[in-house]
């Protein structure tokens, strides 16, 4: 291959990269243990075939922002979108390593986890300010949605003018109340699902294609 041809290829590659619209990045936000990683894994498994990260009943299992690129989701109506899914650590205003000790984790490891969790939350906030194009805000629908951190986070997302879908997760549990979540956030679409069981995720995919498309 001559130098000229190589240079030409390089340039055309550069031009393509320059003009190709960056894939839309959808961040999954919400408090710890809402089921963000469970949903991220389901989306990736349903549309790509592998997983994003480990799920745990111990809070702050996800201590780093994780991105899975180029996932194409097709709705029942046939329209589709290609997105990056960004799984984030749960957002909170407080972290105490004793939380981990209560789950039987040794002190040294608990302190390490707490530090990683604080870094992860800071990272997630940074992503929200800089790199996110749309948000799935996840809530455990068996819990009170009127927590200050939820109101604050949704306010921050709104101020950035990002489209947000609210997911009322864990609708497989008897005391789930998606209605309470709807009343807390009447300004946004709320979709009740079970990320674990897969209830109603088709509806979520459908909404994602039209809302983030």
């Amino acid at each position, binding site marked *: 291959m001559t130098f000229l041809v190589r240079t030409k290829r390089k340039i055309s590659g550069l031009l393509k990269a320059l003009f190709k619209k960056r894939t839309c990045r959808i961040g999954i936000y919400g408090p710890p243990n809402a089921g963000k990683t469970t949903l991220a894994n389901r989306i990736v498994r349903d549309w790509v075939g592998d997983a994003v990260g480990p799920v745990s009943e111990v809070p702050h299992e996800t201590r780093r922002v994780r991105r899975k690129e180029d996932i194409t989701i097709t709705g029942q109506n046939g329209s589709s979108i290609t997105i990056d899914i960004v799984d984030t650590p749960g957002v909170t*205003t407080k972290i*105490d390593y004793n939380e981990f000790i209560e789950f039987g984790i040794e002190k040294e490891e608990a302190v390490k986890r707490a530090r990683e969790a*604080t870094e992860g*939350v*800071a990272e997630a*906030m940074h992503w929200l300010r800089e790199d996110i194009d749309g948000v799935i805000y996840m809530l455990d629908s068996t819990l009170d949605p009127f927590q*200050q951190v939820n109101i604050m986070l949704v306010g921050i997302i709104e*101020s950035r003018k990002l489209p947000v879908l609210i997911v009322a997760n864990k609708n497989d549990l008897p005391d789930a109340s998606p209605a309470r979540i709807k009343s807390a956030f009447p300004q946004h679409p709320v979709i009740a699902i079970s990320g674990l069981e897969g209830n109603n995720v088709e509806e979520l995919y459908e909404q994602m294609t039209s809302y983030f498309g």
Partner: protein
Amino acid sequence: MEMIQGVQIDLISAERLDRLTAMEKIRLILDDVMEGNIVILEKGLAPDEQSKLIEITMREIAPDGFSGIEMETYPIRDAGNGFLAKLLGGKRSETRLTVIGPANQLKTLKKEKDLISAWVSSSR
């Protein structure tokens, strides 16, 4: 006033807040809260300031030390006539009253919350 024994509450007026940059506000709040005090802002923080407050709070957390903040906001309806408003110079404000305290003193803050709610509602 047994309830508030040993707890310092600092009120920061809207006027003062207006003169500070985002970082100055956050530093002022965190330095105070990290000393174990409760801070009341006459005027709520903007969403971007809230986002940075969370980020910087996370950076300040240390094992067996500071474990983060607890934060509540309250709408002000008749801020012009209330006790708190008088205390702060009677300046009317549409923005929300914000209470921030150290997370490990959650219990105290909850009590203070009632007290503060009482102040706000007594204005009607």
